[in-house]
């Protein structure tokens, strides 16, 4: 790889097939790209052709969405092997997965399902993260989830749960600011409090995405992590609050559904870069 693996503390963009040609032809000035690992688990063809080309010019983050780290039983050995092969082939600067489960009893649900925040679940997730890191030979980042329900049996906060996993496995964290707003709104706590309490020293990457606004039948606001539109102003405000405390961090524009043209994504990335630059200027001025 000609470009170093390290993902810079700049805005990056989630790579979509619709934009392959534009990116290869124009080499736009964005810091890095992120791919969903599962989309590159075919044997060959266009996806690998373009990812090879793009990796030559950009740092890469590999984001898994299907390992089911919170699932029962040992992690899927075939899936671990596929992740290891991608990690070796593309030498990503960052590798991440979710605090969630997505498979059970041999069925893959294609969604990130919630866990109860118990000591039992923290021990399981911690052991699975350790296993993943052992297979890959590197640290991974674990992402905070967007949730729609919680569990009676939960005995600790989400942040304490994540900290328990970090302490056991030595993993880092991926802070999805949109997920914070979605979960906080759905569960009725203040997103600012969550951001202020989050252990930013463990954070290696930030996600920014769009959500859908709905109401449940009782009339309460229900936010859905849809990744199908522009980032909400409330999320931008929370992001600025995060950067003000933690400094610049690799920050991803996630737009996975109803994917817009490249110029729209590029403008969102520019905006995230401006938030980070403004914070640096502010820090220098003080």
């Amino acid at each position, binding site marked *: 790889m000609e470009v170093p693996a390290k993902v810079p503390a700049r805005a990056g963009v989630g790579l979509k097939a619709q934009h392959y040609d534009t990116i290869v032809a124009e080499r736009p000035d964005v810091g890095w790209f992120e791919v969903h690992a*599962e*989309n590159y*688990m*075919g*044997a*060959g*063809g*266009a*996806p*690998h*052709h373009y990812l090879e080309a793009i990796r030559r010019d950009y740092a890469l983050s590999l984001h898994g*969405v*299907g*390992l*089911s780290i919170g*699932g*029962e039983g040992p992690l*899927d050995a075939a*899936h671990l092997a*596929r992740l290891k092969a991608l990690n070796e082939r593309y030498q990503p600067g960052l590798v991440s997965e979710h605090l969630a*489960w*997505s*498979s*059970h*009893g*041999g*069925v*893959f*649900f*294609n*969604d990130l*399902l919630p*866990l*109860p925040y*118990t000591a*039992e*679940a923290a021990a*399981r997730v911690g052991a699975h993260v350790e296993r993943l890191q052992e297979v890959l030979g590197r640290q991974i980042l674990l992402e905070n989830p967007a949730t*729609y*329900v*919680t*569990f*009676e*049996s*939960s005995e600790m906060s989400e942040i304490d749960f994540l900290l328990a996993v970090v302490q056991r496995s030595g993993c880092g964290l991926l802070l999805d600011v949109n997920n914070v707003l979605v979960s906080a709104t*759905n569960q009725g706590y203040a997103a600012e409090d969550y951001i202020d309490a989050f252990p930013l020293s463990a954070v290696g990457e930030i996600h920014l995405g769009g959500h859908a606004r709905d109401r*449940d*039948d*009782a009339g309460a606001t*229900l936010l*859905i992590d849809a990744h199908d539109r522009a980032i909400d102003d409330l999320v931008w405000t929370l992001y600025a609050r995060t950067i003000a405390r933690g400094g610049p961090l690799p920050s991803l524009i996630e737009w996975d559904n109803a994917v817009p043209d490249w110029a729209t994504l590029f403008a969102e990335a520019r905006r995230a870069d401006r938030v980070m630059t403004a914070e640096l200027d502010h820090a220098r001025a003080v």
Partner: protein
Amino acid sequence: MQGLSDLQAAFAAALVDPALPVPAAVRRQVRLPQSRRFDVYRNNMMVSLIEALEAAFPAVRCLVGADFFKAAAKAYIRQTPPASPVLLLYGESFGDFLDGFAPAASVPYLGDVARLEWARLFAHHAADAAPLEIGRLAAVPESDLETVRLRLHPSLRLLGSRFPVARLWAAASGADPSVEVDMKRAEQVAVLRPALSVDVRVLPSGGYDFMVHLAEGKPLGAAAEAALRNCPDFELALHLRGLFQLGAVVAIEPPNSEPQQA
């Protein structure tokens, strides 16, 4: 208190069966009958998998319409949910499912079109391999021509249909909207990806049998004989030229080598 294992089993069961109540482990406020919050998970699963099938089978969708397709996809997902977190090739059995899907009985070619679309998906993600030029055959001693094996491209899929499946696909997918479709005409088709884009080719008479036997690892002479059985005017030279022009041959293996299936 309920353990993690029981909690996930109950959650998973309620996820795939909307007739079941919200699992008891879910915090009370969310279990109120008017709350749709658990349904967000049910919906995420179903909608995202329907979208995966819509993206994989656009011609089938065009042939039956968006609403019909959604209903068929939903029934298929309930019957055959994905077993792997890699969804790139999800839907391999969708064509077989449509063959037996009673509401689609009046569209008997639907399963074949679905199998063709899945073959395209398979070819899109298959391993890369560089096709050989036909000139490479000239280097084979004439005495060996009967017994060499042609290794075919790893992306190749062969499909036989009682319907004009390739033309139906071309018309419905928009690849060739003005194509004339003669429903009395059966088509045998090769789908492959010699470079970056996937080709769909209707095979001339005898070509399908010839390629099926080559793909099974039969020597060139034996494959030609098999083709001759159903197609008395099978001309080997012509079919060899066609085969190499397709980009379907990736290796010529000497007579005594172990057969390798594509």
